[in-house]
């Protein structure tokens, strides 16, 4: 089993004719994703990767009834793409776009908050459920199917962890990158709750980093969970006031440090791994208990 997506999830790609959108659409199709169509204003009526292109999400909705949309548009147009998809009634949005202005994202969040649309991202690698579907940009070869759920604020680091787990024979139910921006659509807790309710997930790896308090905010829920959660939090070496690559990875005025987060997890009795390799060890430890 998996969370958020399955084989049957019908996906449209917003920005399908752009270079990244087009390349990643091909990769998703190779992975087995049910790509139903794409959207690029002005390119309606054309075909790419064997799927129809529409001028608007509304037209795509009428034409191919998608359940989800993945967004590959430039940062200045990302908010509009999200509004368009939400207004068209798409239930799951995955915004890959990096560099979206935070004011745009605050408006988007306030708007979506009152709708039934779920947004993953922005600035995220998306969602992968091995054997089911992939919405996003995680490299195809690293995944293997299993019972570990992964939720992360990071991209490459997530691939690293998925890869090392797979290489060590540990498969994943679903891997979710929730995004590295300060304001994102879906939080750790939202995803943890889905993993908790997913019969296909037995253990969860949570990958956090400096900035904000998303990790601390998830502790209360983790303590209520029936499934073990392994934490891994990076950015111990980050100096205050500097953005570490991700717009959201910044220690402001002494809060949001990695050490504070690690301490908070440990004080709550949550295992914190020291490295990707240590994640493997901790997962194995816990899987023994689960079995």
């Amino acid at each position: 089993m998996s969370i958020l997506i399955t084989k049957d999830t019908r996906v449209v790609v917003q920005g399908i004719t752009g270079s990244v959108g087009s390349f990643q659409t091909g990769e998703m199709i190779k992975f087995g994703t049910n790509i139903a169509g794409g959207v690029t204003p002005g390119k309606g009526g054309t075909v790419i990767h064997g799927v129809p292109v529409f001028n608007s999400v509304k037209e795509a909705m009428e034409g191919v009834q998608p359940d989800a949309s993945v967004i590959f548009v430039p940062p200045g147009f990302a908010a509009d793409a999200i509004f368009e998809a939400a207004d068209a009634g798409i239930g799951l949005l995955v915004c890959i776009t990096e560099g979206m202005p935070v004011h745009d994202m605050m408006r988007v969040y306030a708007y979506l908050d009152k709708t039934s649309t779920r947004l993953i991202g922005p600035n995220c690698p998306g969602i992968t459920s091995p054997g089911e579907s992939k919405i996003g940009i995680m490299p195809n070869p690293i995944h293997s199917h299993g019972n570990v759920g992964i939720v992360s604020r990071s991209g490459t680091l997530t691939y690293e962890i998925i890869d090392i787990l797979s290489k060590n024979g540990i498969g994943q139910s679903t891997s979710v990158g929730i995004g590295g921006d300060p304001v994102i659509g879906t939080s750790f807790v939202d995803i943890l709750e889905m993993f908790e309710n997913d019969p296909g997930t037995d253990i969860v790896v949570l990958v956090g980093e400096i900035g904000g308090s998303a990790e601390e905010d998830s502790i209360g829920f983790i303590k209520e969970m029936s499934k073990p959660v392994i934490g891994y939090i990076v950015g111990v070496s980050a100096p205050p006031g500097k953005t570490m690559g991700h717009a959201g990875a910044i220690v402001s005025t002494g809060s949001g440090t990695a050490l504070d987060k690690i301490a908070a997890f440990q004080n709550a009795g949550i295992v914190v791994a020291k490295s990707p390799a240590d994640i493997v060890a901790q997962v194995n430890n816990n899987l023994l208990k689960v079995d």
Partner: protein
Amino acid sequence: MKLYESEAKEIFSGYGIPIPKGAVFDNPETAEEFAVKPGKYVIKAQVLAGGRGKAGGVRIAQNPAEVKQFSQIILGMSIKGNTVRKVLVEEYRKPEKEMYLGITIDRNSRSPVIIASPEGGVDIEETARKTAYKIHREHINPLTGVHLYQSRALAAILDRENAGVISKIIQKLYSLFVEKDCTLAEINPLAVTDDGVFALDAKMVIDDNALFRQDFRQEISGSPEAEARKHGMSYVGLEGNIGCIVNGAGLAMAVLDMVKHYGGEPANFMDVRAGANAEQVRTAMGIVLSNKNVKAIVVDIFGGITKCDEVARGIVDVIAGIGVPLVARLTGTNEAEGRAILEEHGIIMASTTEEAAKAVVGLVHTYN
């Protein structure tokens, strides 16, 4: 991006937030010409670093004559490594009451938050720690903006007597916070003077992600941070001596942490982003090596869109001239090809991030 006080005040003034009359000068003579009216003036170093006051970068001239003298002292001064190239000279306004007013982004509520305290002019973090009850926070719905009832209530907390004018200042500060894509817009102190309410200081930080639609000065290039940004990469200078080149911010932080874990000290954070090619890797090497403290380099690439052979080619192109040892760990897309290229050139390789970190720390200890 941080703005200089003088830049922020110009914007404030455009929004109708009262600021003292003043102007910016890069030499004492023109500063003197500005200060013709008898009375006191303030001369303030225009640097982006904090702690100007303690460093002597803010002086009060008792008369116009002193303006030239103090400008002379402050111009050229170095504050936390920043040379003062400009001063802001303003007519002095004696604060009878100093308040704090700031707007920032609250990540938890995913909305702007206005922070106000009747006790300003000091370190607001300090106030927040010691007397939290003196700090008032009001969350703003980004779809509706700040309501009058909100600015009115905050203004009454700041100074009941001047609540009307302060409420308007809050409305204006919120407008510029949104319209200029700020992540911080701060007035500290917002002062009651015998001449009315004034923003005596001004701080604005612009969302880097929104610079494409804002019309601000170009960043002064030359710094490794700016250089990296120009090439679509992300660099942060650190105190240590191990240069780090990684693709992906999370992985880069993980590498730094592991270097530290094994007893090393990273010299920098460097995210070359996804899809980095040989050219970008060469540029990244140049930027990392511009820090003369660097004694060894670790490269850690997880190939997805990024191809390991491209990265390897970038490394071998420059490896001859770098003068410090390098450990590389490449995995993912075209890994075999990449490793073959590195092997050919005798470059030290690691197969995991941990190995790479351990190895580079060992190299530094061996070579020093």
